[in-house]
């Protein structure tokens, strides 16, 4: 931590814990997650179902499912301001203005009975109090920025009149309409076709270059990480097990879980007879094990792995893995 005020990261998350009260017990969905994000940077949070990546994203916005979800501990600072100390009214101002979110399914983000122009106008009106003409111009500018063809003609359209790719562009226009400093995108292209996905990811990159927005990309897809991210955090069972810049993660993955995931991917370049698999299931997060959470599935595990949660091992600047064998020859 080089802690002078000028070099402070845009977003700091420290020891974040999220609990979900369910009928079958209290789930420790996020259990001590720390990371940071610089202005204009793209961080990928990658992991499998139930690892806590989506709950982490929702916690950043303080939009955990209710009832049942709550932030049980830790700190979230955006631009140095403690988000957990904000009132609900203050959070409403921050959402949309300082941070915005894109979800997987555009239909769940869009109002089916409101024109897309009116939906793009909503956050601008709420946060910026523009004039009527200014608002109209801002809406068309945003629709143009996300490359909706002939925005003036399409602004009156309703979501059902658009394709999935176009709808997700509208969601992007809403999210970026107030020039937030942080954009959280949770599986933004999972519902899109291959060629439409390529268009959307290129659009996100262009918008980031133009506006300098920092991005957190939540994904299960290492292809998206490879294409989009500067740095990566790999999550498993409620914790980040490895963090690295994107090249280091692909070149020198240090955590056995990261390595196993990368080896389980089929490749277009070579045809291998069999893929590596990870046997077993992730642990029950109602009662997570005290040792390394991956140990029961890890081919390298020893009894020492079961004793206590592995401390962070720094392998090179910015490359951290929670494995007692990381860095060992």
């Amino acid at each position: 931590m080089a802690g002078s005020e000028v070099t402070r990261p845009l977003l700091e998350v420290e020891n974040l814990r999220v609990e979900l009260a369910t009928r079958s017990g209290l789930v420790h969905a996020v259990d001590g997650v720390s990371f940071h994000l610089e202005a204009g940077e793209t961080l990928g949070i990658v992991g499998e179902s139930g690892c806590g990546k989506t709950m982490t994203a929702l916690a950043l916005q303080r939009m955990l499912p209710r009832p049942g979800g709550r932030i049980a501990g830790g700190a979230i600072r955006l631009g140095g301001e403690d988000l957990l100390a904000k009132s609900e009214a203050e959070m409403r101002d921050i959402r949309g203005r300082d941070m915005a979110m894109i979800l997987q399914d555009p239909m769940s983000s869009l109002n089916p009975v409101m024109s897309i122009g009116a939906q793009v106008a909503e956050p601008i009106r709420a946060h910026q109090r523009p004039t009527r003409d200014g608002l109209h111009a801002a809406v068309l500018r945003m629709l143009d920025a996300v490359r909706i063809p002939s925005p003036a003609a399409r602004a009156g359209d309703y979501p059902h009149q658009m394709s999935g790719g176009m709808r997700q562009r509208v969601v992007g226009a809403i999210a970026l309409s107030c020039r937030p400093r942080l954009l959280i995108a949770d599986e933004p292209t999972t519902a899109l076709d291959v060629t439409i996905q390529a268009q959307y990811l290129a659009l996100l990159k262009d918008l980031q270059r133009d506006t300098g927005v920092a991005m957190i990309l939540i994904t299960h897809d290492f292809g998206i990480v490879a294409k989009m991210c500067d740095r990566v955090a790999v999550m498993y069972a409620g914790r980040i097990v490895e963090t690295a810049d994107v090249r280091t993660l692909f070149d020198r993955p240090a955590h056995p879980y990261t390595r196993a995931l990368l080896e389980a991917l089929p490749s277009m370049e070579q045809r291998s007879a069999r893929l590596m698999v990870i046997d077993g299931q992730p642990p029950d997060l109602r009662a997570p094990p005290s040792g390394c959470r991956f140990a029961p599935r890890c081919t390298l595990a020893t009894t020492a792995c079961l004793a206590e949660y592995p401390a962070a091992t720094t392998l090179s600047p910015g490359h951290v893995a929670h494995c007692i064998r990381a860095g060992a020859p």
Partner: protein
Amino acid sequence: MSAPLLEIDNLHKHFPVRRGLPLLGTLQQVHAVDGVTFSIARGETFGIVGESGCGKTTLTRVILLLEAATSGEMRFDGRGVNGIGGGALRDYRRAVQAVFQDPNSALSPRMRVGDIVGEPMRAIGTHSAADRRIEVERLLKTVGLRDNAASAYPHEFSGGQRQRIAIARALSTKPRLIVLDEPISALDISIRAQIMNLLRDIQDATGTAFLLIAHDLAVVKHMSTHVGVMYLGKLVETGPADSLYRRPLHPYTRALLAAALPARPDHEDAPPPLAGELPSPFAPPSGCRFRTRCPIAEARCAAAEPTLRPMGDGQSVACHRV
């Protein structure tokens, strides 16, 4: 060995759709599958790639006889499939099984796993109840499920295990062809690898052919011996998987492969290969259906429709410009 297992010849499936006001609107035909020809050899995996609306799911539904073809011919093991009934239909259903994307909707939540897996055997009456139980145990073991799985219900299993149950049921009739419609896209990475390995093991052990529908190009490459690329109801390119991925000829195949996500971060950042979206299937473009998005289209592409022609290395392509 040389005669193909399944031959599809100029297959069409059109759906009537009323557009505009109910009862008053005009009745139009959507050509979901529009003149598709290909064949699947015994024991091989034929992969079909294409984006939403290209007709790949309709094609599988016609092959599974869940939809009647509008025209065209299907032959299985040299015998015509169109309009069969009675014993021939039962034989076909036994020989051609399917595994779908979502195991939750494919497995009855009120039936025990043993009954689910044994149901096809019961329906076709090939086994006594006692033999069925033995065969179910053998199938569950083949797909790697625990010993007492037969007495449990589907909700007691994870998504990957449920897909194993669906595979065990498909295997229960000793099929010669299994249609796999996005069999792993609902699963996590580590589980996907398990299911892909399992399917390959089953194919090696039994010689069952697969028709694989998937949107993930790396998965299709990994699993398939032959690949067909569909666009708006037509096959635009077919060929052995290795040569088609190494030397894609149709501009759509090239765009699709270029749009695939990189395997590593050290890739060149090229602009997205295709602008625009799929044209409306109600009014497909004249001539070549891809021409409205094609970077190399010219006047004749609007005038005449290209047909699949052989290009060497077993590849065929429907494009005037190749």
